[in-house]
């Protein structure tokens, strides 16, 4: 499991602070961040900037997980959703502070900081974003 540490460590900025990328050529925002703009290709090389999302978005679609991996036993049933951020980019995330039956498409949500998982009782703990209903 420890081979996952470098990957998590590299992704800390995007997992903790929703840092994506913005193309300096066409202005397209990507999350997770990209090294090259998918629209502009070579034209964007050297022009990609890091870009922090504001943390607010809308539920596009969602599903309730009843049969969870053992790490998430404590939380089931839980909701995974695709959220469209105010900046236009979409991401997949867990929704918390809301019962599955109360989740609605179009619902406003905001980013929060939670424990995502751990490499067993003795391993590294991973943290990052989950989303909750706006104003909750």
């Amino acid at each position, binding site marked *: 499991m420890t081979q996952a540490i470098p990957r998590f460590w590299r992704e800390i900025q995007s997992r*903790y602070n929703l840092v994506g990328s913005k193309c300096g050529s066409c202005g397209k925002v990507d999350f997770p961040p990209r090294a090259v703009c998918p629209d502009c290709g070579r034209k964007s090389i050297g022009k990609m900037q890091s870009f922090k999302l504001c943390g607010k978005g809308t539920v596009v679609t969602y599903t309730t997980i009843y049969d969870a991996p053992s790490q998430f036993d404590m939380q089931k049933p839980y909701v995974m959703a695709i959220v469209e951020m105010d900046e236009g980019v979409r991401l997949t995330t867990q929704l918390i502070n809301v019962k599955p039956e109360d989740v609605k498409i179009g619902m406003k949500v905001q980013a929060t900081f939670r424990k*995502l998982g751990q490499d067993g009782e003795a391993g590294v703990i991973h943290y990052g974003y989950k989303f909750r209903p706006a104003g909750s």
Partner: protein
Amino acid sequence: MKAGIVSYGAYIPRYRIAPKTIGAVWGNDGEAMGRNLNIRAKSVPGPDEDVITISVEAARACMAKVSIEPTDIGAIYVGSESHPYAVKPTATIVAEAIGATPVLTAADFEFACKAGTAAIQTTMGLTISKMMKYGMAVGADTSQGAPGDALEYSASAGGAALLVGTDHVAAEINHTVSYTTDTPDFWRREGQRYPSHGGRFTGEPAYFKHVVSCAQLLFKRAGSQPQDYDYAVFHQPNGKFPVRAAKQLGFKDAQVDTGLCVRDIGNTYSGAIMVGLSAILDEAEPGDRIFAVGYGSGAGSDGFDITVTDAISKLRRDATPTVKRMIETHEFIDYATYAKFRGKILLREA
């Protein structure tokens, strides 16, 4: 030059359990227990919450109220007795999550329930001496009482972060004093899951002796009397001790009421006095004076004499939910759910 509170932010998990629900499992009259402790409910962290997530939420709420660059923070200290790692600081994760890295110093503090106020004093010294512009002091805990122990009725979760500095001060710290002795009233040995305590020994020779002695030192230092203050807040291991200490010192109920959050959320340990202080700062007006005395087992008290300044009206106090709002936003759970969330059920290794 004086240092003071530049901004503040608190966080309380949304789940609650009532004393009656806990008592029902252990064959005790939980309602009577709750009345005796002056606790109506205690907060319970979700299965994905710990001292790190609570500290980050509090630190973000603190920074949301001001337009200060996180990179101007020169130190972050997190006081807790329930840091998720025995070795690996909580403070570095908080620093990263608010964008304060990499040019700063950071460390975790431990002094039972007063590690957060010790961090306030440290950041006061660092900013008054101009070593840095701002320092952040966090107090947070997700403490547990052993199942069936009296502590189980009060041990809860929550925290608060204070941004301390000498510029843009919203509440000036006029004086701070401490009173410290070696008193073994409450402890947890390395590797032990639950803390141990000296039973009745935790009252008179521990909490009351240190809180009252520190408060009297603070009156003397400030040349003040109880009636000079609009608010008073004390460490609150239950709803009974701080009320009794306040009365003994000559404070009226109205001065203590706003900061007495323990009645609705239980004892948040390192978070307790800082959450209470945040509840006061949520509603305080320029010129208001606050008397604050914390307590940590082992044992010691840190006291603060605070005056709210005109700058409090410039804080975006509505940027994140107030303490009152977080107290009101809750979801009660049963004991089985509580036991599951708090890891009190043994599972097959994942």
